[in-house]
């Protein structure tokens, strides 16, 4: 059965490292739901968060193959771990008119979404939350008319725990 997996790949920060990761996934026929990468507090270390929808067996292969890349330091599938804070970020443009404006702003307050821009016809807002909350937010905005949105894809961090080394 195909399930959503969120995988953190910690790699050496080198030119082309993202291409190595995405190339490897494409080469072995895996579809990427989302991929996001940036350097970390250590400029030599780059962290990529991947979301894939695959079977457990396929995910095992993916993690092994990713580990095999010379530049890979660590691969962690955090899907079944609860000591991670996982977030996604969205910017969304929604249609407004005089009748709907206050309703929408009320919803933004409930979600603690931040208003970025407002005009006669549209608002632009941003939200950082877990994926389910973002999905729900989009759902609630739909009836007003969602013009478009961009999502960052998931990214994550371990909770503080003295016993577990931070990755």
């Amino acid at each position: 059965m195909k399930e959503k997996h969120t995988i953190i790949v910690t790699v050496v920060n080198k030119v082309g490292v993202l291409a190595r990761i995405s190339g490897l996934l494409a080469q072995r026929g895996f579809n990427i739901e989302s991929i996001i990468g940036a350097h970390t507090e250590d400029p030599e270390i780059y962290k990529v968060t991947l979301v894939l929808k695959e079977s457990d067996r396929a995910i095992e292969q993916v993690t092994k193959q990713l580990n095999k890349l010379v530049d890979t330091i660590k691969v962690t599938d955090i899907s079944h771990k609860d000591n991670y804070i996982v977030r996604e970020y969205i910017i969304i443009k929604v249609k407004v008119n005089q009748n709907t404006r206050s309703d929408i702003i009320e919803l933004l307050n409930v979600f603690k979404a931040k208003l970025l821009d407002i005009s006669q016809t549209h608002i632009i807002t941003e939200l950082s939350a877990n994926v389910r909350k973002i999905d729900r937010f989009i759902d609630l905005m739909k009836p007003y008319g969602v013009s478009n949105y961009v999502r960052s894809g998931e990214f994550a961090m371990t909770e503080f725990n003295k016993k577990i080394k931070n990755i």
Partner: protein
Amino acid sequence: MKGSKILLESLLKEDVDTIFGYPGGSVIPILDEFYNTNKIKFLLTRHEQGAAHAADGYARVTQKVGVCIVTSGPGATNTITGIANAKLDSIPIVVISGQVPSGNLGTDAFQETDMVGLTRSISKHNYLIKEAKDIPKIINEAFYIAKSGRPGPVTVDIPVDLMMQEVKKVVYPTKTKLLGYNPNIKGNPKQIDKLVNAIGKSKKPLLYIGGGVIISKAEKELQELMKKTNIPTVSTMMGLGSIPYNSVNYLGMPGMHGVVSANLAISECDLLIAVGVRFDDRITGSRDTFARDAEVAHIDIDPAEIGKNIFADIPIVGDAKNILKELNSKLTSRKKDDWNKKTNNWKKENPLKYDQKNSKGILPQFVIDKVNEFASADTIIATDVGQHQMWSAQFYHHKKPNRYLTSGGLGTMGYGLPAAMGAAYGFPKKEVILFTGDGSIQMNIQELATLALNKINVKIIILNNSFLGMVRQWQDLFWDKNYSATCLRRNSECKAQCKGPENDDDCPNLYLPDFVKVAEANGVKGLRTDKVKDVGKILKEGLEYDGPVLMEFLVEKEENVYPMVPAGKMNNEILFGD
């Protein structure tokens, strides 16, 4: 110091003394360094593919890293097949390609191709050097990555301007440090204990070994294990030579063209101990039914191999030599039992065979078998790809590791001649014999001149059946004998549809090229026969000649390789032919 000089010094620090290659605008500075040193032998091949395969053949026999230097653009792309070939067979080679000047990168300059992009999926790792001062570190890493862990090809792309760049303070690394790369070579003792336990309980254990045993130089440990435990053993094509062909408890090669005993043993064993193998589809046939009654233990240095094709009940990640040594120290001896009797009987009752007596023409198997009379244990055999490759795996008497060069994973026609050349160039005193077909030889035939001019002593044996025989065999067995695009005698006069010479008196007499003439035109001695009685004579004359020789044997056109487990079938569903 100039970048080109730094490159030369870096290569010398890696003990490089032999390089195969081909020049071009982007590598003139480094070639100029070779001009002024006698520490490196540079063999100019006639094609970059030849250089890459030669480096591969050199690496297989010398167990050193093979090195190949080519220019940018077409020079670099011509090595692609050689790199992919080395990747699939885990052969350590470093391919250094020139690149357009840094300032022109990404502008589609003359002879520019994105070598790093092109080789990403077919190399173990690759580099584009950006500054001349990085050359020592990157060359050091490239060699370390190529030869450590599971070996493989590494490519290094160097813009030509870096070769001329001056570096004031050159620092050569004394240690290789890679943040993300640290192959695990010691097997987990708990897992090894698990395997010891499983062997103790097993009634029908089977060792299934492959190229990993040769790479880790574990043949002694393997033979000791076989002796001590009497576990019947099968070897993949890549593992041939790690066990002498006539060893006790050794059944032979399993798989599509494997021996019956090896395939039956896989189908019936209750514990399969896989060492340095990757459960290739040419071995497993149908993965669902492969060794279906067996618990599977898988020893491999590459964790990604474990569970990739076949689930492993007992995975052991590490170097085969270390793990087999551990196993030998922990295992008690096991006496021969009914299982040994059964597997030995299978072996006795199902020998590989061919019927030269009742055949008018020369049988290809007969030629290979006859070579056994001339070859020593040290003789190096190279092959191309196709029927002759399978027959040489089956009928040649493999006695030592690193003596059988064959394109196992990629199945590269054209691999044989340059690989044999690389091996002979690395070991000029050893006898090197190439088994090839009339199709394969033509894919890198340009290297004949390289052999002759450099007195590289390769003995070429062409088994000419006028066909691209392996494909023709599939057409014969599974495609209603529609010999589409497989006959090398076919000419413009032939009728549109042809099912082979048996049904067709008009089969053209003319075969081109005339291989003996081609050999002679290249300064290589050429011999030919189509007579059974002359096979021994020609072999003797050719093999004893001092210099490269091409021997062409015109063999039976439609001989098939048997036994055969058709693709996707279970190992015990075997075709035997007549």
